[in-house]
Structures are given as structure tokens and as C-alpha cells.
């Protein structure tokens, strides 16, 4: 345990997310489950929503079923794009913070709902 370890972990996850080429543990399954457009290296860097969503899925590989994930987002229409509905999650996100349902994603202290929403976006929903 030391500097190499500490530098490696988050930087490596970030690298994986950026390259769309995860190769460890649950991340491998994640990549293969992604739609082709998401799994293919991007011409431009993906935005923060996608990056953090991927990082969440890396840490929570059991949540990489997109349909199940969307069902856990209160008040969203599963037939519409999640990205377009993010603003509607505000009350649920606030509830999460008040209730302490907080998760750390690449260091960010996020409400579970917003982390799952980001994951859903990363999965192409």
C-alpha cells in the first residue's frame, strides 16, 4: 500500500472510462453490455455525466442492468431519454442527501439517485 496504489486506482478507472476499454473485474462485463456507440472510443471525450456514470457502474457492477436501473429512478419515464429527465430528479436527489443515501463516485459525494441516473445515461438510456 503506498503511493503507487493510491495514484493508480482512481486514475486507472478514469483511464478506463475515457478509453471505453475497461479490462478488470466487473468493468469488463460493463463494457460488453454497453451499446456499440457507447463502447466504442469516442471521437470527443464523453461528458461528465457519462464518465461518472461509468465509474459508478464500475464500483457497482450488479447495477449494470439498464432496465432495472431505470426502474429505480423515481418519476422518470423509461421510454424517454434519461438525460432529458435529469432535472425532474431534483426532489429525489434532495431526499437522498437528507436521508444520507450518498455514494462516492470518483470522489464526488453524490446522491444515489443522481449516480444511478448518470449510470443509466452511460448505459445509453
Amino acid at each position, binding site marked *: *500500500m*503506498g*503511493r503507487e*496504489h*493510491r495514484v493508480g*486506482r*482512481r486514475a486507472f478507472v*478514469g483511464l478506463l472510462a475515457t478509453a471505453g476499454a475497461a479490462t478488470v473485474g466487473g468493468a469488463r462485463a460493463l463494457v460488453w453490455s454497453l451499446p456499440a456507440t457507447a463502447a466504442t472510443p469516442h471521437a470527443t471525450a464523453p*461528458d*461528465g*455525466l457519462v*464518465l*461518472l456514470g461509468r465509474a459508478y457502474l464500475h*464500483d457497482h457492477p450488479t447495477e449494470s442492468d439498464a432496465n432495472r436501473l431505470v426502474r429505480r429512478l423515481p418519476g422518470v419515464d423509461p421510454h424517454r431519454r434519461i*438525460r432529458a429527465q*435529469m*432535472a425532474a*430528479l*431534483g426532489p429525489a*436527489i*434532495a431526499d*437522498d*442527501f*437528507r436521508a*444520507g443515501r*450518498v455514494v*462516492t463516485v*470518483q*470522489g*464526488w*459525494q*453524490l*446522491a444515489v439517485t*443522481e449516480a444511478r441516473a*448518470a449510470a443509466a*445515461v452511460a448505459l445509453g438510456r
Partner: protein
Amino acid sequence: MLVDAHDLEHGTTLTADVCVIGAGAAGITLARALASSNHTVLLLESGGFDLDDKTQALYKGKTVGLPIDPVVHLGLDAPRLRYFGGTTNHWSGFCRPFPALDFERRAYVPNSGWPIARSDLDSYYAGAQDVCNLGPYDYSLAFWQGQGLIDQPLLEAPTTPHTVVQLTNHPVFGEVYRAEIVDSPNIQLVLWANATRLALSDDGNAIHSIDVKTLTGTAFTAAASVYVLATGGLEVPRLLLASNDRRPAGIGNEHDLVGRHFMEHVNIAAGPAALSVESGALAPYVPTLHTLDVNGTSRDVSLQAVLLLAPDILRQQELRACEVTLEYPFAPDDKRLEGVYPGTRHGVELLAAQGFVTKTVVTARVLCEQEPNPASRVTLVRARDALGMPRIQLDWRLTHDDRLSLLRTMHKLGVELGARGLGRLRLDISGYTNDDPQPGDDLDFAVNTGSHHIGTARMSADPRHGVVDPNLKVHSVANLYVAGSAVFPTCGANPPTLTIVALALRLAEHLATVVPGTTVVTPPPDAPAADSGVATTKPVDGA
């Protein structure tokens, strides 16, 4: 009266009512207060009026465990200054008293609890305000808001109350009090005078005298009724442990406590916070200079709001004391931001997708208490300095619960920001994902310190648990006292200097009651100044 120790004859004995070793915040305060009560004081200072490399090198030592300053790996000689004024010569001037909770025994903080309460110190804190050239003794946000001098802090709430920090504009005691000390007929300031041994009396129960040396080889003796070590949290144990010719474990070390329980302030930049407010809303967190009228005297004092967690929260969640500030605001589109905090845009973009506009990105800085840990300690090593004194080794340690408390405090901050719709916090240290921080995690490498050396001669009513008693007297020695942060049983999350000064004022008051009457009376203003007398006024009373 000023004495250059180089000018003394070898073998000279200097005497006074009280001998104070060390002319820093504690020693200068003590000397001034005792002199004003017509006691004679021998104030021994290792250095001169300016930094001297050879003298400063006497502070060099070895660090094991956590480096004393992991960020830049400074040595033990860097955080302290060994000349008149001591470490106040680079003090930034931050002051606030310890909250009442810090004095209490907290079951979740091992070895916590002071033998005195905050109320026992209040009157001395008020006096310390004057010594430190501060404003009124009131640190409540409400008071300063009532004065119109500080705005509502962004995060003020019952769970996250704020207090005010006062910053003195005149922090260097060596400049502020030099003339008064030198001109005082009751104080004999001896420069270039290094205490190298505390000599016990024949019966071994008191200090008989102190061996003093200059770096040029002059050796002399200091003798007084009472002795006070005011040399800081690293040098106090050094001198006690090194004075082992009669007591092999060192003086005051019957219970193996001298040098143990070393504490520093864990000071860490938690990471960036993306906020929905303009940088102007953070103004209360930035020290701002004001000119205050204090009893008709004009004083320049800066004020700053800092966030604390409410005592109930600390108790319920078993957290150490903490102090949080928000600093270094960036506009989210500032190109420098990616260099300072790579990847911050990811959080900003996540928030933007929710319709949340990030207007400012700031650094959340957390200062946290550590527990008094007997394994965190100062010991002597074989290497010796130019005076022949053994050098020290510092093994500074944090416990798992210290790390956990720090992480939970930062988590709490992130939750508060989110719950209030103000933004998101990113923690840039590892160990945060599983709440199981380990030595060697990022946390240890991100820790900065306050150059605060605390706890190595801790205060307790029970000699089995402390080196000094509540009057700051070494339990096992009749006439030896300790002043300074070495006596703090816990370190809180406070800058220590105001408490150092308050305790010094309290000690001076105590000593004035136990030390026999003085022999020198301050002459009337028109009388010619006495140029001698102090050095030979007080025979040793056979202590």
C-alpha cells in the same frame, strides 16, 4: 535588562525568583506578567533577536512514522523558530478559544478530558486577547454580525454552526514585546543561553539549578525558586528526558508519559466543491481586516468565519473536533482549474445536466483533531547536537479512528452541501469509498499540519495520567512547571496560541501566589534606571 550570554564569565550563576526557559509566546507572556507583579524573572533564550543558522540547527531531529509535514517533507527544524519571539516569528496570527466540549472527557476520544473547564480559562482568555492585540473576547458569529463586520456564512445552520476566528495583525511577540522586556528592571533576558540540564536538589524532589551553555562554549548556571519550561511541545520532553543523571527515565517521567501523546492538527484540502453561488457569497470565509476600537485603543484585527459541527453532531456521530473553511474560489470556466483539480468539469457537467449552474469552485479545507495517542511520541536518539544534547525522534501517528473521523467529517460536509442544494463536494483522497482508511492511503499523503506540537507533557490531576498537574507543575518535582501547548491534554481543532497565552497568564497568577516576595521594585518613572541587581538579588532557597 538584556544580557548576552557570550559576555558572561564561565561558571557564573544568574538568579531570580522565577527562571523561564524559552522566550516564545508562553515565555514572554509569563515573564511580562510576573514582572508586573514585582517578581524577578530570568528569561533564557537560546537565540538572539534574529534567526541564526547554527542555533536553529539545534532543532534538527529525526522523524519516523508520519513525516511532520508530509506535503513538503520539512524537517523538525522548519516548523519552529529558535530565537527571541520563538515560533511567533512566523505565526500567521489565527486565534480562537477551545470550545467547551474540547475540555470534556469524551468516551469516544481515548485519553480525552482536561482537569480544568473552559469556564476556568475564560478570564485568562480575555486577558490573552490583549496580549495578542485582538478584539473583544467574543467569538460568536452573532456578536460580529451585530457589529456589521461579517456576513452570514453560506453554510450557517444549527447542525453546522460557525464561529469567528480573530487574526492579530501583530503576531510577532519578539517585535511587539522586545522593548518592554529589555527595559523591564524585573526581567533579565539572557540571549544565546541554551538550557542543557535540569539539575535536581540533593533530595531529588526539586530543581536546584539549570545548566546553561552558549554555542561558543560559555557554561553558566541559572538558579531560581521556580523554573518554567516554555520551549514548545518538542523541546520540553527533550530537556526532561535528557536530564536523566539522577532519574534515569528523565525528570517527571515516573509514569512513562513524557514525550507521549504527541498531537498535531490534521489539516487537509478535502477537494473541490462545485457551488451554485457567486464567489462573493464566500466572503465571510476570507479573513478581512478591520480596525476595531477596543476600550479606546485602535487595533487592526482580521475576522474570518469557520464552520464547526454542532456539539450534538460530534457526540452522536463520535467525531473529533473539526474546523472547515472554503477557500481559493475559481470560476468554473477558469482554465487554471483543470490544472489544480483535474476532472472537476465532470461534476460540473453532471450538475449542469440537472439544470444546476455551477458558479464557483472552491477548496474545502478541513482541520481535524487527533486523539491523544501514547504511541505518538517524542524520544531521544543517540545523535547529539552542537551542545552535546541528544537529538529527538518524532514518531507522529494517527489512529484508524482519527482517519475515520476525518473522512466522516468530510462526508458530512458533502452531504450538507447536497442537502441544501448548494453543490457537490469531491474528496480527493483514497480510503473514502469503504470507510476503512489505512495507513498509506492518500489521506496520509495529503495531510498538512499546523506546526502545532501538542500534548507531550500533558496536564492531569492524576500523576498516572499526566506529567503536570492542573497548575502546570510537574507532578513529581516541587518547583518545576511547564507552559505552552505541551500541557494540552487534547488538541482540538483550534489554533493553539491563544490558549497557550491564556494558560501562561493563569500560570503567572498561580506563581505569584507561591513564589516568595520580590526583591526588585519598579523604580518611579523619574528615577534613573537600575542597571544591575537582578542577577544577584535572589539566593537560591535550597530548592
